[in-house]
């Protein structure tokens, strides 16, 4: 074992203890595509003891210019299983666990719980928000990487029991972009080496977290532009938490409507005029998610008061067909609407956009 890793073990700070830490580490890589391939290759080569690989895609011809683990003969086979076989051949010291499955709100916590560090090498916003929330709740470090055209981003979210500090994907980008506004690699194009560079940077951060060598990109966002060869590192300000919705526990996470979250802004939001129109048609329950003492008091239509922390599987009768969530600003009610949409997929769920205070409410 030592000879394979001798060239890194002789580095200051690594040695036998550093190599033992790598061997003991369990790292989960979400996505075995452009970013995932270099992450997996370098972590395998470095002797990380256990690597989980989550991907339900199959190898396609148009993947091969950047997903360098795969060969032409692999087209049509499962990425997770193919990657695991290739990596095992590279280094049989490494225990490889392929999950030929898509990471979802319902399986994320169970899969992630078995690992120490998670690498976000995914290619879509719902998965990025899901990984952020799951790792935050499970206190697992998350190494984020993303690419767009000629540019990439890398950041590390420690999630180490210090919830007062910012440093999560939702702190950085509280508002998920509406669906389709920011294209992925399939729609926008990507240069292969960029994925290699950003994925390799992610693998580097993982090795730093495991061994304790160097300074981790904590509370920072690194950006790289391949065409101008420029790196920029931006600091996240401490102590300025942006208010946003996120699942507060694992049960809520399981039912969070991640795919709908990106569309929530345009499909299921009402203003007061819309709410009054809906009420005139009947059959709608209005749920006030504020605390009981909050002003203004709603008098001109009937409401049910269920404060946001009490919204759960049992708080709304199953026979309710349509539900409008309201609060003063539209933020808490949006969170409630997302929780409800997850628990009761058959129910029509609305949010009073901008809340009671922004409207001509009397």
């Amino acid at each position, binding site marked *: 074992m030592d000879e394979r890793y001798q060239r890194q073990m002789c580095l200051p700070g690594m040695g036998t203890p550093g190599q033992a830490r790598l061997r003991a580490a369990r790292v989960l890589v979400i996505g075995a595509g452009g970013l995932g391939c270099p992450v997996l290759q370098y972590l395998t080569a470095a002797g990380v003891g256990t690597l989980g690989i989550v991907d339900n895609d199959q190898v396609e011809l148009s993947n091969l210019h950047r997903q360098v683990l795969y060969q032409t003969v692999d087209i049509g086979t499962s990425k997770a299983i193919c990657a695991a076989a290739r990596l095992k051949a590279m280094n049989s010291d490494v225990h490889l666990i392929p999950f030929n499955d898509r990471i979802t709100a319902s399986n994320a916590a169970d899969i992630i719980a078995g690992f120490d560090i998670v690498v976000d090498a995914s290619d879509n916003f719902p998965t990025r928000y899901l990984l952020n929330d799951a790792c935050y709740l499970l206190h697992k470090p998350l190494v984020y*990487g993303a690419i767009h055209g000629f540019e990439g981003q890398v950041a590390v979210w420690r999630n180490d029991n210090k919830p007062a500090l910012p440093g999560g994907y939702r702190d950085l980008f509280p508002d998920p972009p509406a669906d389709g*506004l920011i294209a992925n*690699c399939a729609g926008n194009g990507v240069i292969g080496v960029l*994925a290699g560079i950003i994925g390799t940077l992610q693998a580097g951060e993982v090795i730093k977290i495991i061994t304790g060598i160097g300074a981790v990109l904590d509370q920072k966002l690194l950006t790289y532009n391949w065409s101008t060869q420029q790196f920029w590192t*931006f600091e996240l300000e401490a102590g300025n938490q942006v208010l946003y919705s996120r699942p507060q526990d694992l049960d809520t996470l399981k039912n969070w409507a991640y795919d709908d979250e990106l569309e929530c802004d345009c499909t299921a939001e009402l203003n007061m005029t819309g709410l009054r129109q809906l009420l005139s048609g009947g059959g709608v329950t209005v749920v006030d998610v504020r605390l009981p003492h909050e002003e203004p008091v709603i008098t001109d239509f009937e409401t049910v008061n269920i404060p946001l922390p009490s919204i759960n599987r049992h708080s709304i009768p199953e026979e309710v067909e349509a539900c409008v969530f309201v609060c003063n600003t539209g933020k808490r009610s949006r969170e409630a609407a997302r929780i409800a949409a997850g628990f009761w997929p058959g129910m029509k769920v609305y949010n009073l956009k901008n809340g009671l205070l922004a409207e001509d409410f009397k």
Partner: protein
Amino acid sequence: MFGRLAEIAGLTALNIDWVKDSDQLKQKVLELFPAIAAIPFRIAVDKKIISETTTLQASSMVALLPPFSGG
């Protein structure tokens, strides 16, 4: 400007005559490139990502950072 914002604006950097603070700067950039209003982005002033309106100096370097999704 980065990512999708740079693509919409057709440039990665520009000089803007001094404005008082980050809100005024955002307003000015939206006047120049109205299409970026649909994209969520964060503002960094001198490499610090800000959460509140921040006073600008004539020499301040402001970055507009959208999210990326590709992998």
